[in-house]
């Protein structure tokens, strides 16, 4: 038993003594493809709506609220699912967000928002995190679909076109400043003022 471990260690420590350089190079290349592919597949699986609402914490609260909004059903049949808005699309930011999400695993294990009441108590805090994220990246996840360059202001209502040309085009405000609570119910914002 001990000799087997010793032999394994020797092979791992100096593989080129035991295997040809060509085999190691090719083998490493193939293994790399498999591991990288597997990693990305796992990343993509955790980036689906089914995965998100696999937990009752998401399915019974925020998902039910989303269902009533225009981002879920609309005339053109385009649907924004959870990761479209809540996970950055470019790779580095996505991985950074995924690492942050380890806190959500902790929350799941300890049942931080396991009941509607607990979720309601946390709603303001959780929403504030998302608003801060959108504010910091200039509403990037909104702009993945809604870019101001492709907006035809003449086809918007008077009110909308005025507000967009005044505040959005000037860069004074970003999407999330006005469009809070478009996909989920809003928390009591007076508590936010009280906390300041």
């Amino acid at each position: 038993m001990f000799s087997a471990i010793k032999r394994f260690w020797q092979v791992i420590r100096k593989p080129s003594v035991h295997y040809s350089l060509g085999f190691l190079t090719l083998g490493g290349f193939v293994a790399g493809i498999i591991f990288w592919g597997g990693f990305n597949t796992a990343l993509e699986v955790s980036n689906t709506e089914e995965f998100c609402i696999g937990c009752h914490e998401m399915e019974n609260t925020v998902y039910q609220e989303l269902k009533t909004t225009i981002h879920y059903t609309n005339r053109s049949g385009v649907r924004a699912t959870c990761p479209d808005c809540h996970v950055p699309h470019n790779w580095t930011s996505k991985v950074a967000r995924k690492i942050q999400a380890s806190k959500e695993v902790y929350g799941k294990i300890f049942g931080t928002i396991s009941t509607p009441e607990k979720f309601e108590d946390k709603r303001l805090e959780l929403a504030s995190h998302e608003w801060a994220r959108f504010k910091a990246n200039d509403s990037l996840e909104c702009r993945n679909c809604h870019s101001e360059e492709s907006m035809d202001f003449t086809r918007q209502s008077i009110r909308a076109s005025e507000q967009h040309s005044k505040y959005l085009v000037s860069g004074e405000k970003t999407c999330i400043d006005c469009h809070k609570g478009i996909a989920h119910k809003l928390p009591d914002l007076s508590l936010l003022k009280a906390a300041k």
Partner: protein
Amino acid sequence: MKLLKLILASLIAATVFGGASSYAAETISEMRNADILTQDAAPRISKVVNSDERQVRNYPEQPPLIPHKIDGYQIDKRLNKCMTCHSRTAVEQSQAPMISVTHFMNREGQFLASVSPRRFFCTQCHVTQTEAKPPMENTFVDVDDVLDGKTDK
């Protein structure tokens, strides 16, 4: 004699109630344009007026109509979406009309610092309008026309 009375009573009942029910059936079929037992197709959902133009009030006390869509506007215990534009502090940026000062009054006529709870739920009085064609003709006469002596439309 007793039998005669009974026959007479049932005759009267048959005329009155029979007549009434046939009248009701006619009215309903007139409104629905279909037989009472058939289920007619639901009318298409009309578009909500989204012109952003203020509309004439039909009488001075009428709560102003909402000239824009309010789909998904949250008005509940936690929050009032309308107030993000129509509150006292928001109108400078939104250029929307501020809620009337009467909304700050409590039922004793005392002015409060913020919206009175009894005026919190906007859609209790303020409504959007749709482009739906009314199924019945409206004979409403504007008060100005009444003053001018015009009593019918």
